[in-house]
């Protein structure tokens, strides 16, 4: 688990800060391109708000389509941060070091993007005010606090707040490093941001305690967020295929699966774009690949249980949904694609060490996972609504309109653009964490062999 050469502090500073101080042509070109796509999505959203939801493919009974699918997808991606940062920090996994910051930042940006989706989905975003606040003051009509749809924003905003704190606390030592290398206004800004960090032992102690506390406290929030998102579905008894006791853990493990896969993609891109070959090494992809095999297999077990219990009850409503998914084209093709891309293709690839150690093959497998996980949410939401339900006499299927497609593409561009912009002002790999890893790195001689080792601090 310790490949690559030893690095000095100076080399680490220089290497990891190059994203801030260098201006390659591709950088601004990419930001501009992504910005144009985001503007296009904003224009599409504006058009939809102006014209009404009629320009989307949503219609009775399928009133949740691409937007809610995308909302669940981005909430899922946000689970990468805690999984890789908090859990691996608490379990003291050494290979976490180059992945934590990117995972945490991805969490923040994907949560922000996820929260845009209900705003857009509402059609008239100002109506979201009624979602959480009392409206029509005179009659005292309050939102239904017993609805999972109300618990949702509370959980997501708590997660967003704690994730921002998590990123910020871990950034403090690195901000001081940038401050010490900056001049003028830039220095002033970083001086304010690093809160007077000097790197004395008291500050380090506080930073470590804060990191551990936040890691532990954020875990229940992390689990609650996607559980409550699943409650949006499983609490509804009208849509039979959604009412399943396994939904909370099934959603959480699916989120971890897609989130960790997304981090692998980000790491491979960082490595390639910023030439961080000394920091993001094949061993890290190997470890992530092994983690992903476990997560994916756990997810697959939950998926099998969820599918099996859709049939177990022998109830017409549910069987019709499963029939729709497995026997009626094009849905059956989407279903096969979903299962193949989420589990069989990537896990089949990860079983080979040579694949796990190859960043680009890992990217292929992880893109496959995220295609599958996006489809999973789509196939949970739409067929359940499209099929005939109790008290519902309308049969209708759903096809997204170009407006929805453009907005969805825009969300991917938005997260990518925000990640690139972040990399321009803050290091995407924690400098202090890498330096700490270098200090703790050891070797043990056993006979003629040299075994990598690590210092244990407690």
């Amino acid at each position: 688990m310790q490949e690559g050469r030893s690095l000095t502090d100076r080399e680490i500073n220089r290497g990891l800060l190059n994203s801030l101080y260098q201006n390659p042509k591709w950088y601004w070109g990419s930001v501009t391109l992504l910005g144009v796509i985001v503007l296009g999505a904003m224009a599409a959203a504006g058009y939809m708000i102006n014209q009404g939801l009629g320009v989307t493919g949503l219609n009775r009974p399928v009133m949740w389509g691409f937007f809610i699918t995308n909302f669940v997808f981005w909430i899922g991606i946000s689970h990468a941060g805690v999984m890789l940062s908090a859990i691996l920090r608490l379990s003291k996994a050494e290979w976490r070091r180059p992945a934590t910051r990117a995972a945490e930042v991805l969490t923040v940006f994907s949560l922000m993007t996820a929260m845009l989706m209900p705003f857009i989905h509402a059609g008239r975003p100002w109506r979201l005010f009624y979602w959480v606040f009392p409206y029509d003051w005179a009659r005292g009509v309050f939102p239904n606090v017993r609805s999972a749809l109300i618990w949702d924003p509370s959980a997501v905003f708590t997660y967003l707040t704690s994730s921002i704190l998590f990123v910020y606390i871990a950034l403090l030592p690195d901000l001081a490093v940038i401050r010490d290398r900056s001049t003028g206004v830039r220095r002033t800004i970083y001086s304010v941001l690093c809160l007077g960090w000097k790197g004395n032992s008291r500050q380090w102690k506080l930073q470590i305690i804060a990191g551990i506390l936040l890691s532990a406290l954020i875990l229940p929030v992390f689990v609650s967020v996607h559980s409550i998102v699943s409650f949006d579905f499983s609490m509804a008894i009208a849509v039979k295929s959604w009412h399943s006791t396994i939904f909370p853990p099934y959603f959480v493990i699916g989120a971890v699966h897609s989130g960790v896969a997304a981090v692998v993609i980000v790491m491979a891109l960082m490595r390639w774009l910023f030439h961080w070959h000394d920091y993001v090494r094949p061993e890290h992809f190997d470890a992530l690949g092994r983690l992903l095999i476990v997560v994916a297999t756990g997810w697959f077990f939950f998926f099998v249980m969820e599918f099996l219990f859709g049939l177990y009850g022998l109830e017409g409503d549910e069987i019709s949904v499963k029939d729709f998914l497995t026997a009626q084209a094009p849905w059956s093709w989407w279903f096969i694609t979903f299962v193949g891309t989420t589990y069989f293709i990537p896990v089949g690839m990860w079983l080979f060490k040579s694949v796990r150690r190859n960043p680009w093959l890992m990217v292929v497998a992880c893109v496959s996972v995220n295609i599958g996980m996006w489809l999973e949410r789509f196939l949970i939401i739409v067929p359940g609504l499209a099929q005939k339900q109790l008290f519902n006499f309308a049969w209708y299927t759903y096809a997204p309109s170009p407006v929805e497609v453009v907005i969805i593409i825009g969300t991917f561009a938005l997260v990518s653009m925000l990640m690139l912009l972040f990399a321009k002002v803050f290091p995407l790999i924690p400098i202090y964490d890498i330096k700490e890893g270098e200090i703790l790195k050891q070797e043990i001689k056993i006979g003629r062999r040299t075994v990598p080792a690590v210092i244990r601090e407690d």
Partner: protein
Amino acid sequence: MANGNGHITPVEVDLTDQGITEHLSHKVFAFDRRLAYAMAGLGVLFILGIIGFVMRAVGDGFSDASRHEWGYYAAMFAFLLCTAGTAPLVAVAFRWTKNHWRRPLSRASEMFALVGILNLLWFIPLMALLPAIDLNGDGHLEVGVDRRTVWFEGPIGAPLWWDMAAMIGLVVCGLAILWVSARPDMSVVAARGSGWRAALMRKLAMGWQGTKRDWRRQQAFLAMLGGFYFMLLILVHTLVSLDFALSLVPGWKDSILAPHHALTGIQAAAGTVLVTIFVMRTWGGYGRYIGLDPFWAFSKVLLGLTLLWGYFWFSEFMTFWYGRDPTEQSVIKLVMFESYRTAFLLNFFFSFVIPFGLLLWNGVRKSVLGPTIAGASVIIGAFFMMVRLYVPAFNIRDVGAHSIADFEAGVGQAIPSQLLPVTPDVWDVFIILGGLSGTALIFLLGTRLLPVMSMWETKEGLLYMLVRPLLKGRYMVLGKPD
């Protein structure tokens, strides 16, 4: 703390390869009066268990009509599956993750694979008690007439023979793990002992010589068998919980039950191993090998499992309770809030409240007694969980009904008789005692054949752990081989 070459031992005493070999192989052959008394006592209790089983079988027989008498027997089977049956997973999992603190507990957890034989024998009578899927025998499945199962209409032999095949696979795989892992120690025991045990060990060691090829093959087999064991274990938990609990209760449709059952098993297995190493450390004379490390590290795992247990339970409860569906309400009334309220409260208290309340504190986690108490608590909790799942399920006579919400209470009854709680009778108590004592007895018999502390893993640990200076302090350095 450190021996001559700078390498340190897993605990704070000096150990050498020679010392480990001598002490651990001596423990196998030495006569221990306390152990003999314990085994005799356990033997008596085990015989009581056999008497309980025989009396139950003779008195009530094995039929649909007598199924309700066998609820505690089924619960005890599931409990043994959760504790001893799942315990080898502890060795498998932490060997995969290459944790050094696993070394003192690996063999103890693998040794529970021997109890799998008892678990397998225990399963056979249950096969005779499971009702047919096609209740009216007309060859096809009809809602409201036939019962619902996860096997639907096929395949041939479902569910009994498929369940049996999975059980056999699990037990054989567990025993194979124990054998592959113990071969190096078997050859040592064979070389240092005499008599029938040494001869048996020599045969079982199958020419182990400790060559590079031997070690490589052992690592490969352990990794492969570990993977199989994990998958088979989850499969068995799934099949047992769905075939012997859920599908016997009309209208119970609970997709999280199987994962929750498996998780309870893993949690109880962690508790079983913790209690076992505590006993080994305190009374077994293995104190020099079992330091604070395994307790401290394992307690964090147990805390995580406990939190997951609470989460899985909440997912089940919340979906049923919030949904207000009459069928689901009647199910949670049966297994949680009315008929088996006491068992549920004890289950919740021992599986979640006590371990969570204890392990939340670092001071408790970083002790020997704290994690042990939490471990004992989750074992008790698992027992009550199995009682509240299997006893009511075996008490349902009308297994082909659409929903238990449709059952009608008799005159003067608040609850339909099929949903009333069943209290254990004397034969049930004997069977429970027999199961517990049988588990302990088989484990102790195992220690008379093999060292309960893995010699080769303990010695390997000495090579991978050192103390080195860093800045002003001295720290432990852990080797991380690929």
